[in-house]
């Protein structure tokens, strides 16, 4: 199916060798071109592991992964390399992925030259200037180091760096969880706009169902390394089929007074 950009079936991941712990137990997931898919679940449910498995950053012990019609499950790294540009990742803590000793200019220009997307430094700089404008950062940022930027600015640099490489697919893992609401709104709006403009497919990992609802077309609810429920956001949020999804939704405090919200609801929460 050409419509699906990235698919995985029966994914299993075991950490710590053959006698280790299995943390993904047969996950099926499909991401269409241009589509944003949310992955939600409690801490330890396997969201990050699933994301890393899709990107071939951790080995799978069973199952298969296809990218753009080609099986990549066990593709040797040399053959993966040309695909790496097309598959980008944005992290929760951009500091950890941005070299602290490099200027933002170098951080953004180098990958363009490395992947041959710009013929020379001048061309690369021109592209960087353009993307900086797109993520609404002043050009003065270019001469700073990552630690001289605010959290929201760093996250926009992370997005700019991913977008510069014109990927087909972006994995975003908890990229707004450390930001205050206004900055979070800024970053999410930007990401949404870019994914439309560039026709990006995205997997958006978050533990926050309100954020997922705001940016995703479909959602996968993960629990104990299995898909508990999957579907269009409009469906799943209006009409969750799984009790677990219902519990996750019910646990979100909305900014309006709801007497009794904190009172135990008999039965269902014990399932969590």
């Amino acid at each position, binding site marked *: 199916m050409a419509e699906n950009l990235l698919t995985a079936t029966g994914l299993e991941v075991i950490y710590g060798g053959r006698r280790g712990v299995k943390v993904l137990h047969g996950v099926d997931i499909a991401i269409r071109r241009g589509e944003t898919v949310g992955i939600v679940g409690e801490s330890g449910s396997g969201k990050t592991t699933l994301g890393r498995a899709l990107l071939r950053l951790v080995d799978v012990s069973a199952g298969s992964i296809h990218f753009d019609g080609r099986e990549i499950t066990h593709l040797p790294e040399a053959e993966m390399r040309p695909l790496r540009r097309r598959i980008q990742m944005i992290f929760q803590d951009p500091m950890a992925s941005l070299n602290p000793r490099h200027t933002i200019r170098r951080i953004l220009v180098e990958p363009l030259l490395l992947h041959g997307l710009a013929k020379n430094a001048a061309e690369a700089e021109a592209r960087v200037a353009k993307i900086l404008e797109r993520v609404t950062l002043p050009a003065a940022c270019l001469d700073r180091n990552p630690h001289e930027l605010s959290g929201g600015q760093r996250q926009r640099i992370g997005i700019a760096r991913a977008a510069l490489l014109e990927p087909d697919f972006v994995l975003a893992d908890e990229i707004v969880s450390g930001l205050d609401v*206004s*900055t979070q*709104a800024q970053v999410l709006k930007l990401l949404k706009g870019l994914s439309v403009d560039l026709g990006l497919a995205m997997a958006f990992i978050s533990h*926050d*169902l*309100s954020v997922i*609802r*705001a940016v995703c077309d479909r959602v996968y609810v993960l629990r104990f390394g299995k898909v508990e429920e999957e579907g269009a956001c409009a469906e799943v949020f209006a009409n969750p089929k799984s009790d677990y999804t219902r519990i996750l939704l019910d646990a979100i405090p909305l900014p309006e*007074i709801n007497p009794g919200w904190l009172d135990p609801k008999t039965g269902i929460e014990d399932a969590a």
Partner: protein
Amino acid sequence: MTASLLSISGLSAVSDREGGMPILRDVSLSLERGEVRGLVGESGAGKSTIAKALLGILPRTVRVTGGTVQFEGRDLLTMPARELRDIMGAQISLIPQDPQTALNPGRRIEAQLTDGLRLRRGLSSREAHARALKLLEEVQIRDPQRVLHAFPHELSGGMRQRVLIAAAFALEPKLVVADEPTTALDVTVQKQILRLIRDMQKVHGTAVIFVTHDLGVVAQICDSVTLLYAGKVIEAGATADVLQNPKHAYTKALMAAGPRYDRPDAGLEPVPQAVFEQLRAEIGIR
């Protein structure tokens, strides 16, 4: 009329780390016995600075330039260190943000829970043990005996946060300061922890200062709320009034910025630049 339990009046402070930059600007707020007040604001607004002032643990690089912090009519800022020590932990206690680092990794939970009971409340080891067991039951720990004998690393994040809540209420303080106690937790665990804090607060009649950046949390657990920006009180009042009828443009903008799963088309509007300009003009930041 009896005095409020806590009354902060005109509190101002500057940061010597940032060249004398003001970090609290004429902050006033009061708290009655048994009241839960939310302290909200973006990162750097000064929430933790206020919490630290209440606990008498302001860093040396933060200098108070004016105001008073009256607890039961006595100013914590000018109180002799000895008297302050008697109040801290016993009358005012903290639920910290990070359950990973707040417990001593080398000591069993029992030792950490009973120190204060023995040394400050004069309980015997047996009495302190019984009291610690009871406290762990109150915070819904299923196997309190096992947890008493455990080291912190043997407990999950949610369990550790429960232990810290038990510890905060152990000496029956009149005021508990909770500095983002659920930020590091899953929503499901957050809900359980919020319920616990509410239940403990009700049972013991404790007043709580609840620091959070989540207006949803404020709505569910706080009677009143104080919103800060750049160390200045922007809006304060009963939770229902502030959330249903926000007066300041900044409060309104914050309400519109948070995404809501029940209203997918609302939310996600960043605070407009004009609102930040208005704030800076009002506060006098150039």
